[in-house]
């Protein structure tokens, strides 16, 4: 079945605008083309390139890899790792596992939400921070714990957590001013 409206072409052109990502995407798809059962790995690859799963890229994969869009969307929404929205520069994973829960992780959550003025699963308007709650980062003896871009911090108190976040924000501010 082919469609005549040229939407595919348009879509392809849109993604091509970002040339280096386009290049990586092509390499990724080549690696998995013809290999059955690679959808999860492909989507993980896409997320590594774009930081999330852009709608257009999912549609493009559907048409070029001959996978039903509904299937891609189904897999993308089943797993919590996949994001349909872009993440901020600093991705905060706040642990809400058992050990962290009994050690007061909820207070850390409250404090971070108040500080950044966002809810879990949201990104600050300056795109600096995204907050996600996860279940256990495997550092339970340091509970409560959070991980920011693969670096774990613990044991936290609301104050400590805020200091870490404020420091990151301040370093951004500086880098920004230095750039000017």
């Amino acid at each position, binding site marked *: 079945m082919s469609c005549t409206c040229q939407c595919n072409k348009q879509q392809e052109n849109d993604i091509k605008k970002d040339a280096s990502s386009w290049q990586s995407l092509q390499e990724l798809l080549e690696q998995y083309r013809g290999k059955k059962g690679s959808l*999860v790995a492909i989507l993980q690859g896409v997320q590594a390139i774009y930081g999330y799963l852009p709608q257009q890229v999912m549609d493009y994969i559907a048409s070029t890899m001959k996978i039903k869009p509904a299937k891609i969307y189904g897999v993308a929404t089943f*797993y919590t790792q996949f994001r349909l929205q872009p993440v901020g520069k600093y991705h905060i994973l706040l642990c809400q596992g058992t050990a962290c*829960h009994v050690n007061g992780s909820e207070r850390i959550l409250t404090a971070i939400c108040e500080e950044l003025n966002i809810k879990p699963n949201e990104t600050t308007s300056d795109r600096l921070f995204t907050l996600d709650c996860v279940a256990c980062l495997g550092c339970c*003896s340091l509970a409560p714990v959070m991980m920011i871009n693969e670096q774990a911090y613990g044991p936290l108190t*609301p104050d400590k957590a805020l200091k870490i976040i404020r420091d990151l924000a301040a370093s951004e501010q500086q880098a920004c001013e230095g750039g000017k």
Partner: protein
Amino acid sequence: MKIRIGLGSCGIAAGALKVKESVEAEIQKRGLDIEVKDTGCIGMCHAEPLLDVIDDQERVFTYGYVTPEVVLKIFDEHITGQSPVEQYLLAAPEKDYCFMAGQKRVALRNCGVINPENLQDYIEHEGYQALKRVVTEMTPEEVISEIKESGLRGRGGAGFPTWFKWDAARKTPGDIKYIICNADEGDPGAFMDRSLLEGDPHSVLEGMAIAGYAVGAKEGFIYCRAEYPLAIKRAEMAIKQAEERGILGKNIFGSGFDFEISIKQGAGAFVCGEETALIASLEGERGMPRLKPPFPAQSGYWGKPTNINNVETYANVPWILANGGKAFSAMGTEKSPGTKVFALAGKIKRGGLVEVPMGLSLREVIFNIGGGIKGDKQFKAVQLGGPSGGCIPEELLDTPVDYDSINQTGAIMGSGGMVVMDETTCMVDVARFFLEFTQSESCGKCVQCRIGTKRMLEILERICNGEGQEGDTELLQEIALKVKEGSLCGLGQSAPNPVLTTIRYFRDEYEAHIKDKKCPAKQCKSLITFRIDPEKCRGCGTCASKCPAKCITGEKKKPHVINQELCLKCGSCFEACPSKYQAVTVE
């Protein structure tokens, strides 16, 4: 002389990299000839960062809570001055650390001892000897009978005899078979598998290769959760090194046996720890469990016979083949032989990774090894088995840790998460916490699991919010039964366990919430109020500066007040108020 630094995720989070930097700087500055060695988690996570000084007689001095300043002291007093820094010394040749007493290390034999990024180090600790013997001297049947002799049971939770699964996969006809290592570790409060993969990845690879030989598989996968970046990195490195040495790949040890291993990352779904869901996920699908039989041993990955075991199960295998099944079954109890690794966490003084012979009592693990409760509060319960398990109360603390005794309490052994709770933990809230987890992780295939857990969660939320009604506990028990009966996989079948055990052992707490609208542990926000006692308040302002809602006001040196409408009930003010005043009350 050598210095060994623990660089597991926990160590790094506690600042071990800074410690390493300063150690290296000191060595350089002082022009010393000391080897610095990285290692994985030794298990004393509560005392991270950890540093071992190993002298020329191979005597080990373990330091805890090390900071760059402590490093200086260690160099000045111990390394140059030859007298250990007692203040930070945890263990030394004549000083046993109570945390290690009573432990027996089989699966964790190399964790915290070898450098996980160095294959040679593993080999020097008898690594790959068992694999070599297996592929060159033993038949697959002999391997399986050795495992049978050991009595090894699956460490992933259910405790199924490992030899039986291997034998079934072996006997299913087929040229292509697979080995899978389950490193999804979904229990939110457990980190055994992470530490093993980070601290001793080769022992897991070796166990998988032995299983491959026994079953007749040439290919293996490690399915690891993406939240463990360091474990993935170290396992990848280990695979690469083993391949380069010819220990994995084609014609292993000249035996004609081929075996390859690759890593697949999970994508964040608890249910994918269930074996059939894991296989669906490996095949690129939504990870939904399916009906068994057929079991994976009959029809698994791409319909081929597949053996799937947990990380710790595989880590035990090389030890068993090196030391004999008998030596393994001599440890532990008759029905649960060997040792078990537990991740001790929660309100415990000395949390971390412990490995004990089965049959030790919970009390011994929590109080002797773990040192009891943080802040010397009152012990309330210990949670075993995560979302599938239950809370075991004080009066059952003498229960031995083995599969069958733990099952009798209504909890399960699970994969080894052991979360300790004290008087300040609300048991209704704990039940709500786990139900919230299972409800959101239910894959939605079965009506009872999908909707039943939702209804149970609603009831628990209502109780925590002070809107509980007469008959709620009975209703919970009734739905729990239906959810257990009508669920396809272990997630649904065991989801009610945390609720049922807390009702069984802590019914009084449910009653207090429902009838008196009180939370005895003072945790449920709707049922507590923070107040400042004007008699005691000195107006120091500490609480106001800590309050995230900025809802505490008052003039300096005058009593402060909390605006109850804005209060988030976070408890920061309660903790902030200096102990000499204790002006904030909670009720």
